[in-house]
C-alpha cells in the first residue's frame, strides 16, 4: 500500500437542482497523494471547476464523498476545513480599496475568533506568505494597481496564510501573459504542499506530477502525464491531433496541436 491519500474523491457526483436538473459531474473517484501536484485537465465544460469546488467543500456533492486525510469533508466544520485546505478561485476581484497586506491577512480568518486581534505570530505568517510569492516589496500597494499576475500571487499568498496542507487552484494562469504564466506555474510547483490545479494549457499540465483528465463530467484517465497524454486520448477528449516534439536544448517534451478537421482552409 502507498501512503494514504491527502485528498480523496469517492464516486463524486453533482447535479443542479430544480425542474431542469442536470448532472454536471458523475462518478468521479480520484486520489491526491501527499506533496504531489495533481493537474486537473479537460475541455471547457468538462466539469473541472465543479470537481475542484466539490473537493474544496464549497459545493456539497449530491453523490459520493470527499475525504481529507481520511476524514469526511462533510463532518468537518468550515473553519477547521479552512485551516487544512485553501482554495483559489479564478480571478476573484474586488472594487474595495484594499492593499496587498490586508488582502493576504484575510487568510488568517479561519485561525482567529470574532474579536481576537492579530498577533505578532499572525504578522509573521502573513510576511512569510508574501515572501513565498515574491511580493514583500509590494505589501502596501493598492489592489487596483496590481497586474493580473500580481493579483493571482496575492490570492495564492492569502491561501498560504491559511497554512493549509492542501491547496486547490482553479486555472491560475488564465488571462496572464506568457511570462507571468511561466513564473506563476514555477512558483506553484515549488510550494512544499499538496496541490490540485485545474489547467487549460496541456504543455503546462506536462509539468504536473500526475494528471486527472475530465471529459463530459466524467473522469476518463488518471496517471503520469507522459503515460496518459497519448495521441488517442488527446484525439478523443480534446479533439486535436497532437505531435510530440522534443526541445533540443533540454530534451523537454512539447506538444504541438493541429485541428482534426480543417474546415477553415
Amino acid at each position, binding site marked *: 500500500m502507498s501512503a494514504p491519500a491527502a485528498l480523496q474523491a469517492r464516486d463524486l457526483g453533482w447535479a443542479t437542482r430544480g425542474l431542469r436538473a442536470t448532472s454536471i459531474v458523475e462518478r468521479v473517484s480520484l486520489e491526491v497523494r501527499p506533496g504531489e501536484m495533481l493537474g486537473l485537465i479537460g475541455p471547457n465544460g468538462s466539469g473541472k471547476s465543479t470537481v475542484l469546488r466539490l473537493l*474544496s*467543500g*464549497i459545493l456539497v456533492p449530491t453523490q459520493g464523498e470527499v475525504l481529507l486525510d481520511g476524514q469526511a469533508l462533510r463532518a468537518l466544520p*468550515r*473553519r*477547521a*476545513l*479552512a*485551516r487544512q485546505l*485553501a*482554495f*483559489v*478561485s479564478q480571478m*476573484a*476581484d*474586488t*472594487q*474595495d*480599496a*484594499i492593499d496587498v497586506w*490586508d*488582502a493576504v491577512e*484575510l*487568510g488568517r*480568518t*479561519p485561525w*482567529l475568533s*470574532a*474579536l481576537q486581534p492579530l498577533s505578532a505570530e499572525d504578522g509573521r505568517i502573513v510576511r512569510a506568505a508574501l515572501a513565498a510569492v515574491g511580493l514583500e516589496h509590494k505589501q502596501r500597494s493598492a489592489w487596483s494597481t496590481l497586474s493580473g499576475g500580481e493579483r493571482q500571487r496575492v*490570492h495564492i499568498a492569502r*491561501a498560504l496564510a*491559511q497554512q493549509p496542507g492542501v491547496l486547490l487552484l482553479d486555472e491560475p494562469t488564465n488571462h496572464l501573459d506568457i511570462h507571468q504564466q511561466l513564473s506563476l506555474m514555477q512558483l506553484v510547483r515549488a510550494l512544499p504542499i499538496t496541490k490540485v490545479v485545474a489547467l487549460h494549457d496541456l504543455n503546462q499540465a506536462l509539468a504536473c506530477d500526475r494528471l486527472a483528465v475530465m471529459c463530459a463530467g466524467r473522469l476518463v484517465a488518471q496517471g503520469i502525464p507522459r503515460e496518459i497524454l497519448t495521441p488517442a486520448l488527446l484525439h478523443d477528449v480534446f479533439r486535436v491531433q497532437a505531435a510530440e516534439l522534443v526541445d533540443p536544448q533540454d530534451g523537454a517534451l512539447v506538444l504541438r496541436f493541429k485541428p482534426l478537421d480543417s474546415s477553415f482552409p
Partner: protein
Amino acid sequence: MLRLILLISAALAALAVAILLGVAIGETRLSPSVVWQVLANQLAGAQYPVDPIDQGIVWNYRLARALVAASCGAGLAISGVILQSLLRNALAEPYLLGISAGASTGAVLVSVAGLGAGAISMTTGAFFGAVCAFALVALLAHAAGSGGLRNSAQIVLAGIAGSQLFNALTSLIITKSGSAEQARGIMFWMLGNLSGVRWSDTLLTTCIAVAGMAVCLWHARALDAFTFGSESAAALGVAVRRVQLVLLLVAALITAVMVSIVGAIGFVGLVIPHAARFMVGVRHRRLIPASALIGAVFLIAADVISRTLIPGQVLPIGVITALVGAPVFAGILLKGRGGRA
C-alpha cells in the same frame, strides 16, 4: 488598548458635541449654557432656574429629536455597510433597494388599515414589509440574471420596481383607509420626518442602533472575508449562508424600526459608508464604528438644516439627505463606469 479607549472617547465626545449643537440651534436659538443647565437639571437633579418653555424645548422637543436623528443616522449607515459588503455592490442601500418602501407599506398596513387589530405594532409591520420587499427585489434581480444583486444595473432597476410597487401600495392603503388629515400626515412622514418624536421612540431607536452595531462588529472579520466575494469567504471558513441571513435580517430590522418612527430617509446608507471608507479604509473593524458615528452626526446636521433652512417651516429631512445623496449616487455611478460596473 489605550489608543482604543482614546478613540472611543473622542468618538463619543464628537457625538455629544453634535447632539448639543443640534439641541442649541433652531428657530429659537438657545445658548449652550441654557442647554447645559437644562441637562444638568434633568440628568443630575441640579436646580438651575430655567425658563419652563426653554426647558420644554430642550428636553422634550430637541433632545429627543437629536437622539432619534443620531440613532437613525447610525442605524441606516450600518445597514448600508452590511448591504454593500454582502451584496458586493457599491450602490446597495436600504432606500434604493426598496427596503424602506416595503417598511413604509408594512407600517401603514398596521397603522392605517388596522392589520392585526392592534395586536401587532407598527414596527413589526414595518419589519415584515421590509423583509418582503428585500426578498422581492432580490428575486427580481436574480431572475433578471447577469449577476443578480451584484450587478449595479440589475440592483438599481429591481430597486426601482420594488420601491414604486411598495410606494403605490402605501398610497393605495392610505387613500382607501385613511382620512384626508391622516393622508397629509403620512405623506409628510413618508419623506422622512422627525417632528413629533417622543422619548419612547428615542429609547427604541437607540437600542436598535447600538444592538445592530454590536452584531455587526461581532461579524466584522466575516464581513472582511467577503472582500473577494462569497465563494472566497466560504473558502476562508466563513459560514456564508448563516452570516448573510443574520446580517441581512439585522439590516432589514434596523431599516424597519427607523422607517416606522421617522419615515423613509433616503441615501444615508449610501453616502455615509462611502465617506467612512474614504476616511478609515475598508476594514470593517474600523468602518462600522466610523460609519455609525458619521451617520449620527450627518443626520443631526441634516435635521438642524431642515428646521432652519426656511424660517417658520420644517422641511422633511429626506429632502436634505436626498439633496446631498443624489449627487454622490451619480458620482458612484460615473466612477463605476470605467470598471466592472
